[in-house]
């Protein structure tokens, strides 16, 4: 039986990591909510963010945490043409057409990463990314705390955007019923485009944080996507605050699973949880009202 220090450290680390996971899943969630699209290229958007953070550091020498707004804008801008040239023409064609298109984007991106950056495994090497923080008996990685703070701030900002602004009102209306929103004068296309870009921008920031905390390569997108899906399902599709809670819950439960069953069972615990929630609470933990 591991001692109390290990248990509490593990849980704290899990909760903090969960906050970062929530940010990586946020884009997937709002795109699902507003566009009814399982964005199969979401993981690759995260990888774009990680490479963007890495090269920003290499070329400017400026810390990627300071460069996060640049990364966010860059990845968000990249998403705009994807929406207008690839997704918008498929509106009203059912879920599969857009989903398969994003899958195609995903394999093109992955191929492009290999050609442009080689298949090497990379990591954004920063001193603060590999330093422990000790508070009494509890030890956890400093980068988790930094990432958690940035993620929660960003998620709350998106929540404010969705719940308290005119854009948010249009977004919510489009999510509930796009046709009805359109008849009420909401420019659904524009809302969807901005949502898609916002989702990608969040993924860009999340990708840089993941790249600093862990490692990544051209094919990391698949694993990112699956983790994000688990978070989204736990929190409810399209629910911003739900995504935050889902991420934290997943992080905490995975670390408890890792502690009791072994680290190999972390993802398994996540997926099992994911299916259970799907089966019993298909709208997520917070079943009421989507944003």
């Amino acid at each position, binding site marked *: 039986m*591991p001692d109390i220090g290990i248990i509490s450290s593990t849980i704290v680390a899990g909760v903090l990591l969960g906050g970062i996971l929530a940010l990586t899943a946020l884009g997937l969630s709002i795109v699902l909510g507003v566009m009814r699209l399982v964005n199969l290229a979401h993981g690759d958007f995260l990888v774009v963010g990680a490479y963007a953070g890495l090269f920003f550091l290499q070329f400017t020498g400026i810390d990627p945490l300071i460069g996060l707004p640049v990364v966010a804008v860059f990845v968000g801008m990249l998403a705009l043409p994807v929406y207008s040239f690839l997704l918008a023409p498929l509106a009203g064609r059912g879920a599969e057409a857009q989903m398969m298109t994003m899958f195609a984007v995903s394999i093109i991106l992955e191929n492009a990463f290999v050609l442009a950056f080689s298949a090497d495994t990379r*990591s954004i090497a920063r001193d603060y990314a590999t330093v*422990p923080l000790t508070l009494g008996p509890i030890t956890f*990685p400093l980068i988790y705390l930094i990432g958690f703070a940035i993620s929660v701030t960003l998620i709350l900002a998106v929540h404010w955007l969705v719940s308290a602004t005119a854009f948010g009102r249009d977004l919510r209306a489009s999510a509930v019923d796009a046709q009805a929103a359109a008849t009420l004068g909401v420019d659904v296309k524009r809302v969807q485009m901005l949502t898609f870009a916002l989702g990608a921008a969040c993924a860009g920031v999340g990708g840089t944080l993941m790249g600093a905390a862990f490692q990544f*390569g051209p094919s990391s997108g698949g694993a990112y996507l699956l983790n994000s899906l688990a978070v989204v399902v736990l929190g409810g599709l399209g629910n911003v605050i739900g995504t935050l809670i889902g991420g934290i819950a997943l992080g905490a439960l995975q670390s408890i699973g890792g502690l009791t069953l*072994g680290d190999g069972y972390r993802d398994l615990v996540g997926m099992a949880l994911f299916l259970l929630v799907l089966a019993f609470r298909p709208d997520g933990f917070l079943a009421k009202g989507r944003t």
Partner: protein
Amino acid sequence: MKHHIGKSLAAAAAATLALSIGVAFADDIVIGASLPLSGPLAGFGSFQQWGYKRAVDQVNRAGGIAINGAKQQVKLIIRDDKTDPNATASNTETLISRDRVVAMLGSCTPALVHAGALVSERAKKPMVTGCDPLEAFKSVRKWNYVWDLFFHEPELAAVPFKAMADLGVKTNKKLAIWHDNGPDGQVIGGKIWPALAKEFGYEVVQNSEFPIDNSQFTSVIAEAKSRGAEVVLVDAITPQAIAIRKQMASAGYMPKVLNIEKGAEPVQFAEALGKLSDGILVGGYWDPAFPYPGAADLAKAFESETKLTSSQHIADSYAAAQVLLDAITAAGSTDSEKINAAIAKTDKSYVVGPVKFDENHTAKLPIVSLQWQSGKAVIIWPKSAKTGDVLFPLP
């Protein structure tokens, strides 16, 4: 309804037929390889592709190979298997049945190598491969047409223990083992290391197995730390190796010896980690400093041609291709049986050292212990191959 049935079928059939055009010229010697050029193992595939191509290019520049007295060029056809064994198998099938290759070169990692090798074996086409640890290779079946030159797991596993003993490093002899559950991980971490620990007087305070694509190691690290292990032996591929090192640092865990098999070898490992890579040990079957013909040139050529950092995988792939090309030369024929018989007689020193296959179709590559020091891999053991002194304890 029926009309468009016919139309669609005809179109599809025409598309398929169009593919049969474009096969190799009749007077080339065609060899094939299916490699992971995309997907998680794309890193390995790019090293191998370079090694295979270099060997073939050199033979062609020298005029090719004499078949029945007439010199012919060698054509190497490479296909991408996307790190999917199903694709390795189907690529190998196509290379044999459509492109009429006379022999094959292998993919990388047991799962992919075996998928292709089984096809080759059934089609009775010789295949020379590296990148498949010998015990894993032998466990599949009795091979008649497939030949493997790589490291032997028990030897690789013994290196850290022997090196620690010879170098006289002082630790509390508490050992933590973390290994993935791939074929070689299970053999090395699950069986051989625990046995050797006993033999060398270490106490195994932890033995953890994880899936090869696991990304979180906080629990294993916390456990090893709390049990006071000063020696950590890891068997993992590169992404996991990098994750483990970073997470150890951010958990504040500092063992005195850290040895990461497999994953810590390529230069990208040290590049991704920066100074965190200092002091990490890894068993290597090749290094440009090896006293074998062409070793120093090989790494230099790779780095200047590709602008990428090198890995030992350029050496076993280059050597495997040379073994095959030498066998075709010796056979003086494109007959599969004759080439296969010639491979069996291989007995020559290559860039990886002397290669001679035993009755299991395996050839062991000699192993040294490397240590990362300021971004450079230094051979610290055995004494005879040493290029630098050991850095101890782990900084």
